[in-house]
């Protein structure tokens, strides 16, 4: 093999490795994959993305957040300081911030009582949440009032039978 061919092969290999490395890093795993492939992924550094639900649980320097990707919510252990920019947590009235974490996945974390969790190194808010506008179905209110009036008169008229 000539020196030129060897250099080209080495460059190609480096490029190939870099290509796979960056792409693997960018892969965002779903909660179903984390649960189903927990043995295989245990201890690996990976990316996971989900909506912050309900609230963050502040434990001093660190906090717990639960990120729901639409299938399951996964617990993420992260620095409390990394949550400074969080605006919305998902609940009935709000759509929570979409957060992407990069960190070490644990199938049964020995530091956290055997929980399946991710210890986050970096946290990125992909999309901010927002308040949810809910319209009230007036037909339901009308039906409720009509039924209530019927019940009221039935009780008045037939009270001795109740």
């Amino acid at each position, binding site marked *: 093999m000539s020196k030129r061919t060897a250099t080209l092969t080495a460059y190609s290999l480096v490029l190939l490795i870099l290509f796979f490395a960056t792409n693997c890093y960018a892969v965002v795993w779903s909660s179903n994959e984390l649960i189903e492939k927990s043995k295989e992924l245990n201890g690996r550094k990976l990316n996971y993305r989900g909506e912050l639900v309900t609230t963050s649980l502040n434990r001093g320097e660190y906090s717990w957040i639960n990120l729901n990707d639409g299938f399951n919510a996964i617990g993420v252990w992260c620095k409390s300081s990394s949550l400074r920019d969080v605006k919305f947590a998902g609940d009935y009235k709000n759509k929570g911030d979409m957060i992407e974490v990069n960190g070490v996945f644990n199938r049964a974390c020995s530091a956290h009582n055997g929980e399946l969790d991710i210890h986050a190194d970096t946290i990125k808010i992909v999309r901010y949440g927002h308040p949810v506008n809910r319209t009230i*179905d007036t037909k339901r209110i009308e039906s409720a009032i009509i*039924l209530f009036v019927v019940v009221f008169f039935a009780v008045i008229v037939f009270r001795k*039978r109740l």
Partner: protein
Amino acid sequence: MILRPHLDDYKIIGFYLGKITISIGIAMMIPFIIALAYSEWQGAADFLLSISFTLLVGTLFSIICYTRKDLATMHAMSVAALSWIVAMFVSALPLYLSGHYGSYLDASFEAMSGYATTGLSLAIDLDHMASSYNFWRHLIMFMGGQGIVVIALTFLVRGTAGAFRMYVGEARDEKIMPNVVETARFIWLVSMVYLVLGSGALSIAGIWGGLPPLKAIFDSVCIFMAAWDTGGFAPQSQSILFYHNFLFEIITISLMLLGSINFALHYVVWTGNRRELYRNIEIVTLFISIIVTLSITAWGVLEKNVYAGSLPFSSKTFYHLISGHTGTGFSTIYPRQFINEWGALAMFGVTLAMAIGGSVCSTTGAIKVFRIGIIYKALRQEIKKMLIPETAIFVQKIHHIKDIVLEDKYVRISAIILISYVNLYIFGTVAGMLCGYSLSEALFESVSAAANVGLSCGITSPTMPSALKIVYILQMWAGRLEFIAVMVLFGMVIATFRGKR
């Protein structure tokens, strides 16, 4: 010869069904108030509609079927069985209107799961559910645990002999106080005292764990209701795992164990007789059963080498074993982890614990340790009889509040209920396997539904076949009522069509 029921028989059943339906309508006012307090206007409208509809159904039943006659056994059993079906349909209405259920069948499944204190859930996007609907799920569970009939007895029905028959129809056969209404009120008193203590402890643990105070109190009340009534619903989709809180786990274990104890035993201990705890056949059997099933489960988990360190291993194993044995269904792992990580042996240990269950006259489901204890004693008696001289007289006693001579009638009824449960477990397992699930998955989920536990290995989901949802609803219903009332109801239906005039 079976006699066809008379019109008056249907009227008696209808009248009391009406009373019970009205009491459910009144209970819906609590989530309605919560909806107003949390400014959940759509929730308030849905509950107002549901209250009006439920009260209308109850009022119509009571007016059309008006009677002053008392309940005979047949009526009382039929009322007990039917009231759970009517309660399921009317209580599903606000859940369905919430938009968190794929169909009315799914909402009905959730309502029956709540009433039967099972805890299997078909809710979609639970983490975004309004507090009022979420509270209603838990309140349903609390009412089901206390007993729908117990609620009606407490507030709306006079303490007649028929009332006691209805109470028995709901799988409660202990007369703790001289009067059945006083018994129902005592059950409420015990529950209310623990509600204050349990919710208080959980709130403190929640705030310590980082929950905002209002959320901590709300979730604590919900979780208390689910733990004490060994139900298993939780306000969040991750169940207890959401809180990442070891203290929470310890408190819920205590509540689950307290909820699985006979109300009569609570009364005896409350009145100062603490020795009963060490002598009672139920407690002794429960202790032995926990040791045996825990050993099997621990062996299975150990073989799979999932948890590094003794604390994660013991806490995960013990928590799920107690959750299963008491029929609660709280979980700190994901359902699929049972299949993927715990393996068949550990799942068998939990399944066995679920199948056995807690105490009679408690809020647990399943065969129950009292009956297991009786059958074990009867077996021992038979073996001893063969070993002693034929002329000798041997009397076997059991201790449950007082010493009781073990008579054949106790053994017979225990064996009948045990066999009925085993058949119910098999029925659900076969149905699960026909839907394409493996034996261990189908058995686990079937026992969980029939024994009113609520642990899932992943089968229960909105996408599961509708036929299987109906099978699980029937299992939860029959399992909670312990068959007798359900069988009497079926008998009455048969008599309606085939009975002689």
